[in-house]
């Protein structure tokens, strides 16, 4: 490393990332949509849209509503299913010079196990993010994420079916997120990611009906940042595994706040919609911050605000 250079690499539960900036599942498609704006090869990793065993059509429209400094979505895990993912998307993903996190969900513990083993076999995936926190589906999803026992069960099933790093994605819609975090870590998670969206809704006063066809949706964007930051702060001090922090990150300042709160890496979600170059600008901004503050290793930022 040359003098003045900053070492941006971090280790996220066995996953060596060239820098701590990744993207959020469901906001980054299958890695190609934002490639014209920011080369995925310059990011630590990318996470692709949530995958299930079967093809899913997702929820009826409308699925989006803008809110103050945020948005609600009720996509409902629309995805091509593991078969088509492997056949059509994975070959393209393999060509990208970056680590790919597959985000998985299911209706049952068996679904999670099945998709994990398929991904393990397929190759080309750097890690599995286990979504036990999707607020937009009837079965599984958020239920797995609010009950520590079920969360542990799902984690164990994935753990047993893959050698890949397992990152469990936690729901913010709980009284005590550290309880769930501890449960999934005890069950073998290599890292945890948080937060998924916060359950919310919007109403159209003209039609006098909920805006979203699904009634409830998940809140994301800068509006949720203070809540996400608090949960990263709590969880990173409660468990020994690294935390992938997300929720409202739009700028390098946001990302640095998450690292200082205890995140080992961060993910940009809704921020991509607002500024498609946000992930790259964040990498550059973190580097600049480190340089300006005489920090040689970005790792030093992790949890630096704890005391």
């Amino acid at each position, binding site marked *: 490393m040359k003098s003045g250079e900053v070492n941006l690499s971090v280790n996220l539960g066995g996953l060596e990332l060239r820098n701590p900036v990744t993207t959020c599942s469901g906001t980054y498609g299958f890695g190609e949509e934002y490639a014209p704006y920011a080369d995925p090869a310059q990011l630590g990793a990318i996470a692709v849209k949530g995958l299930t065993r079967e093809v899913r059509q997702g929820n009826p429209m409308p*699925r*989006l509503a803008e809110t*103050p*400094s945020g948005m609600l*979505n009720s996509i409902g895990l629309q995805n091509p299913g593991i078969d088509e993912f492997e056949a059509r998307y994975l070959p393209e993903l393999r060509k990208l010079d970056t680590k790919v996190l597959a985000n998985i969900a299911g209706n049952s513990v068996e679904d999670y196990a099945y998709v994990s083993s398929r991904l393990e076999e397929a190759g080309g995936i750097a890690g599995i993010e286990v979504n036990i926190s999707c607020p937009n589906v009837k079965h599984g999803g958020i239920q797995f994420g609010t009950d520590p026992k079920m969360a542990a069960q799902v984690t164990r099933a994935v753990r047993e079916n893959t050698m890949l790093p397992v990152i469990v994605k936690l729901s913010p819609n709980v009284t005590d997120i550290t309880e769930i975090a501890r449960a999934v870590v005890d069950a073998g998670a290599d890292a945890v990611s948080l937060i998924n969206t916060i359950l919310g809704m919007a109403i159209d006063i003209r039609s006098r009906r909920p805006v979203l066809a699904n009634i409830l949706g998940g809140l994301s964007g*800068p509006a949720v940042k203070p809540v996400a930051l608090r949960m990263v702060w709590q969880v990173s001090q409660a468990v020994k595994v690294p935390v992938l922090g997300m929720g409202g990150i739009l700028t390098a300042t946001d990302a640095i706040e998450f690292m200082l709160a205890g995140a080992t890496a961060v993910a940009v979600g809704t921020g991509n919609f607002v500024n498609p170059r946000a992930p790259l600008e964040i990498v550059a901004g973190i580097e600049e911050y480190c340089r300006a503050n005489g920090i040689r290793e970005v790792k030093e930022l992790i949890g630096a605000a704890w005391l």
Partner: protein
Amino acid sequence: MAELFQARVLRNSEVCPGIFNLVLEEVRLAALAQPGQFLNIRVSAANSPLLRRPLSIHWVEEGRVEILFQVVGQGTEILARVRTGEMLDVQGPLGRGFDPDPGDRTPVLVGGGIGIAPLGFLAQHLEGRKVLALLGARNREVLGCSGGTRLDGLGVAIRAATDDGSLGQQGLVTELLSEVPANGLIYACGPGPMLRAVARYALEKGIRCQVSLEEHMGCGVGACLGCMCRGLSAAGESVYKRVCADGPVFDAREVDWR
């Protein structure tokens, strides 16, 4: 391929009450743009309003890209206050536009209200051909400033319908559909009910038809799956398609109108 631009505002003028013509100087964007594509514009550097606003490309000339927009809410209100010389954060051109080559068919533009706007850019591409336009709007003024005047300037033959009868016949633009020749190719943009009526008419008569759909958008690039419309798969099944990336322009036969 779409890009992000900091585009200089050359002019932003209220062409009639509540409708603005925004002219951007951006040579590269002008070169990339295709008729029917749209821009995703960040209206404010603040966190609220958060999302970009999708707006169709209305006109392209000499390195300048123009849009026509109607003020309907917070985002377009902010956009209305943008002034000459400011830089605007513009993403585009986005989406699949019109197929601007009608072959040996007669191009027929069908536009309703502000939906006339993107037909201007399309008509630029069709210049030299005999083009018919069926246009509808609230009144003469709105029809003109939504793009009608520009179509007229290009020599497009215009048949109009207005709510108040101030131009053309009183009523809906869909009442003019019988004027579409059998070998016509309809390019339609406007409110949902209008598009549905146009598409149904075209499908019934076996007339080729491309429609530009609208949906609220999250990303505008196909990544979030928030802007779906009901389309038909090759096998004729009803499947979701992304308005932003698979459209906004669809062949009427690709859409599930049920």
